[in-house]
Structure formats: C-alpha cells, structure tokens
C-alpha cells in the first residue's frame, strides 16, 4: 500500500499525514500569491485568482480526468491530442452546419470511446498504459491532421456567444461559463472519488491491483472506466478550449499531457497510485496557472527566459514541497 499513514503534529494540532502534501501545496500557493502581490502592483486582487481559473478551465477538466487514471497507478499521455482532436472535430462539424448540441454530444462520445478503447487494451492485453496512451496520442494527433492541417475558425453564433459570456460575481469580479463547467466537473469527480463504489475501487486498485482482484472488486470495469473518464474529460476540456480559442487546430494543446500530469503530481498525488486528492489537483492547476500569471506580470521575459523561469519555479516549488512534507516511509516513488 502506498497510503500515507500516521499523523503529523503542528503547533499542538494533529493532522492526518495523508493530508500533508495537499496542505503543503496550498500553503506554498498562498505564499506564491503573497510574494506576487508584494512584487507587482495590481497582483493581489481576487480577479487575478479568478483569471487563473478563466485561463485554465480546460486544463482543470483534463487534470481531473488524469487524476482518476494516476490514482489507479496508470498514466494517460493521450489527453493533449484528444483535446486537439476535440477542437478540430467541433470546428469542422460547426463549419459544416451541424447543430451545436449534436456537435458537443459527438465530441464527448468520441473522446470517451477513445478512452474506452485505450482502457480495454491496457487491461485485457496487459500492455503498459504509458505505451498504449502514447500510441493513442499519435492516433488522435494523426486524426487531427487527417481532418485538416490548418487552423479552422469557429464562427457559430452560439459558440462565440458562450465564449464571450461573463458571469459577474459582484465587486468587479467575474468568471466565464467555462469556469463554472470546470468547477462542476471537479465537484462531480470529487463526489465520485470519495462517496461512490467506483471511487473506492479506484483507490483500491491504485493501492494494489492484486489485492483488489482478490477482494473481488471489479478491476476490469474500474480500470476501463478511469480511461473512459479521462477521455471524456479530455473531450470536455477540448470543448472548453475551443470556446477559449474559437478555433480548431491540430497543434492546439501540444504538451498539455505534461501540464496535466505535473498538476496532478504537484497536488500531492503519487504516480504509483492509491494516494492523492482531487483538491490537490485543483491546487496543482492553480499553481501552474499562477506561474504563468507571474511571468505575464514580469512582462519583459524573452521566450527562452520564460521557459527557464517556469522550470526554475517548478523546481523550487517541488523541492520545497518535498522538504516540507515529511519523508514517506515504505512508498517507492517511480
């Protein structure tokens, strides 16, 4: 089992050790926000945080799907490509005059079916998830280019209306419908993970697939389900991205799988599976978004210094997280 056990004593209060990684991430996020507020004018406002949500709603949804997969000890490299395929499908179908509801439905079904297929291959043919989803990544990206090699704009009135809509929260704060969609996904996923059989099975398989099998848990169904969920979330993330970009393009979301994996891991989830929380993933996405925000406030960085800066911030963050969290015992990190 990789579940963290024991309790950590901080100032007379004891908190279960399993919550430590998430709390450390939350603490570091607050510290980063505070540092940004001190350094830059107009940084320390609520809208900056809300903008992080607005700009990363699609990543949030994708990372939620990735959390399910990683909790079972698997990994899904295909998410970025499935996101791109979704934007492409949506753009092409809308251009051909399909009704919006049908387009959305079809895109979600395609994403879920791709995930289902990969999950079935992972489970029934016992091929490593890394490789199956890598092939899935090539497949989805290849399908994008087969559909069209250039960027297709989305001009559908209801899509553009949805893209430009804002929801005022009072006090000059606002969010977009995409943020609401992202948060709904988070809440639903948190409920599924912590209050349903499927969720408990996901944790059990991540802890030890062999034990889960011997306990009589539906391993096949659960493993295939998590990849289907991830595919579905990627398709939904792709739809949110097409609202954000208002175009479909085969080069959208290149490397997004790494962002999603980084968000999940920064949120304290172990890649070996069985341990982690959805709240951590949300914080991980916020951390990545805040790093981007800091860079845009910095303003004068050239594109290569931006990459070095992102790497350095990621490094500092992960190192601090490791140093503050007490060393795990018995868990092997791979």
């Amino acid at each position, binding site marked *: 089992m990789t579940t963290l056990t024991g309790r950590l004593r901080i100032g007379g209060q004891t908190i279960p050790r399993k919550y430590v990684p998430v709390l450390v991430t939350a603490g570091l996020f607050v510290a980063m926000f505070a540092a940004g507020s001190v350094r830059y004018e107009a940084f320390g406002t609520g809208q900056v945080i809300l903008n992080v949500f607005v700009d990363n709603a699609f990543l949030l949804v994708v990372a939620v799907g990735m959390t399910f997969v990683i909790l079972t000890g698997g990994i899904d490299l295909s998410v970025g490509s499935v996101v791109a395929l979704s934007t492409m499908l949506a753009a092409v179908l809308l251009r051909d005059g399909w009704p919006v509801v049908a387009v959305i439905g079809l895109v979600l079904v395609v994403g879920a079916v791709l995930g289902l297929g990969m999950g079935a*291959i992972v489970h*029934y*043919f*016992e*091929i*490593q998830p*890394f*490789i*199956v989803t*890598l*092939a*899935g990544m*090539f*497949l989805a*990206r*290849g*399908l994008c*280019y*087969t559909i069209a*090699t250039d960027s297709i704009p989305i001009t559908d009135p209801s899509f553009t209306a949805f893209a430009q809509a804002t929801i005022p929260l009072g006090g000059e704060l606002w969010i977009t419908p995409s943020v609401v969609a992202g948060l709904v996904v988070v809440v639903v996923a948190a409920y599924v993970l912590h209050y349903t059989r499927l969720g408990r099975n996901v944790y059990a398989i991540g802890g030890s697939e*062999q034990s889960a*099998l*011997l306990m*009589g848990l*539906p*391993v*096949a*169904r659960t493993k295939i389900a998590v990849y289907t969920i991830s595919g579905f979330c990627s398709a939904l993330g792709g739809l949110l991205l097409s609202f954000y970009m208002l175009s479909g393009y085969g080069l959208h979301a290149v490397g997004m799988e*790494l962002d999603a*994996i*980084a968000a999940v*891991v*920064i949120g304290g989830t*172990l*890649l070996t599976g069985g341990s982690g929380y959805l709240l951590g993933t949300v914080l991980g996405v916020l951390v990545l978004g805040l790093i981007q925000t800091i860079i845009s406030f910095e303003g004068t960085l*050239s*594109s*290569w*210094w*931006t*990459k*070095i*800066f*992102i*790497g*350095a911030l*990621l*490094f500092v963050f*992960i*190192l601090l997280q*490791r140093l503050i969290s007490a*060393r795990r015992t*018995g868990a*092997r*990190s*791979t």
Partner: protein
Amino acid sequence: MSRLLGHRLFWPSAVLAALLLVNVVFTNGFLNVQMKDGHLYGSLIDIVRFGAPLILVALGMTLVIATGGIDLSVGSVVAIAGALACLRISLLGDQNSVGGVLGAIGLALALSLVLGLWNGVLVTAAGIQPIIATLILMVAGRGLAQLITDGQIITINSSPYKLIGGGYWLTLPFGIIIVAAVLALAAFLTRRLALGLLIESVGGNAKASRLAGISARGVLLTVYAFCGLCAGIAGLMISSNVSSADGNNAGLWIELDAILAVVIGGTSLAGGRFSLGGTVLGALVIQTLTTTIYSIGVPPETTLLFKALVVTIVCLLQSPAFRAKVLHGRRRRPSASARPVPEEKKASVSA
C-alpha cells in the same frame, strides 16, 4: 519452434523484418549496399546512420528505465549539447582546427554529463518522482538551449565537426562507429561488470536492494549521468549532420521515440529488467518505420496515424496476454502466460 516464438526479441525482429520486406517491395534495390569512393552506401546503411542518435538516446534511456525511472529531459539535453558545441565552434578563429573542435565537443559532453547528474541528484537526494524531476529540465532545458543560441540558428562550417554526424571512417559512417562503441561500453559495464545486476536489483525492488547493501544512490546517479551523456552525444550527431544548432527543434519529442524504442525492445517500464540488444532493435524498428513512411509514400498528414497503427501492432504482438487470447485461443497454452492469476479464475473473480 516454440522456443524461438517465445524469445522476447522474436516479435520486434519479426516486425523489423516485415517493415524491411515492405521496403523491398516498394523500393528497387533496397537491400543493395554499394561501395563508392571507399564509403559504404545503401538504404540499410542509411537507416542505421539516421537512426544512430535515437539508438544512443534509447540506450541511455534503457538503463534509466531499468531502475524504474524515466528521463523526459533527453530531448532538451540533445538541443543543449548541439547548441553549446556549435556556439564554441562558431567562436573559433579557425573552425577547422581539430583542437578547438575537440574542446567544444568536450565542453558540450561535460555539460550533458552534469545535466544528467542534476536529474540523478533530484531523483536520489531530493526524492522527487523521476517523471517530474526530469520534466523540470525538459522545460527549462529547451529555454537554456535557446539562451545559448540566443534564439537564433547557429550555422557553422567545420569539417572536423561534420565528421561526427556526416563523415565516414573505415568505410563506415562515423555515427555507426560511435553507436557501436557506446553499445559495447554499455554492454561491458552492465553485462561483464556487476553494474547491470545492481541496476536490475534497484529497479526490481529498491528497498530490498538497500537492505542487501546496495547503494541505490550511486547506481541511480550513474544511470542518469550516462543517459545525459548519451543524449549529449546524440545532440552532437544531430547538429553535426546539419552543421547547425537549433535550440527550439533539435531533438524535439525524441524522448517519446526513445521510450517507445526501449519498450518495443522488451524492457519493462516498471524496471528491474532490461535488454540493450532489444533497445537497438526497437530503435531500428522506429527508424525503419520512418523510412517506410517515406518510401511507400504515406501522405504527410497521415504519418502519425500510420505510426500509431504500427506501434499498436508491435505492442499487441509482444503482449503475452494478447497472444494467449487472440493468436492461440484461450485454452491451448495456459502455461505460456506468467501471470499470477490464471485467466479463468480471473474472469470468475471479476464477474
């Protein structure tokens, strides 16, 4: 016959043979190897020559994966090594001076080694999960390479440097000789000395090997440093072949191809077992696939689909579960699969 079929390198070899066969059908004189001006020429030689950087990167990756880790940063190291070497050479008064070029190469390789060690330190001393530890260098390293080249493409004109990626020595392309040397070194270190055993034991069970008195830290540092070095050599080859350094695109996504090559070669991503020969075979399969895509004229927009298809087929053929279920029928060879729970039992448990 069944022993041959059961050999773990049988299926990758079969796929390689099939791909070559496709080429023979589509390209006239595909198998011809000619001697021109004392150099060997031919499509087969080209496959090995163009595949040389991938083989090198994949060799380093094999050892990292054997310890249960993974190195995503190799693509960035490729770019950094090429950028640094080209920058140093472009600053030389005489770009053809052998001493100057050797200095530049030495510096670039030393930096690659340091970058590999950096990954190793993050994994061992800081205890960060390898995929994330190397992701840091993957992101920052791309920036570093562009910083070295100042965002430009550095073009050089140096005949000693050109030798690494485009030259010939003893009738063979020099790249092939480098690959052979690195392969021989890796094979000697891991199969003649105890290092291979230590790597497999750390990858198989880190805790048990620590209790047995193996310094996992030293082993891990060694493999990450070796992986960095291999990526550095590959970077020199790639930049030398085109006589220029492109910080943005050199070695882009080579980590995925390298991991794919390692897995096709029969090394498990879970660690604890590796096959250098398999990795070379896997890298050749990928390079032959690229050649095949060009030779049979797959349209550029469907190359990725084709690649996905072939990768899936190779992996399915290699999966004992797939062969047991699809190729041989369910019951004929129940003992062939080494799974702890037999198929029938599994089905009844999950029902």
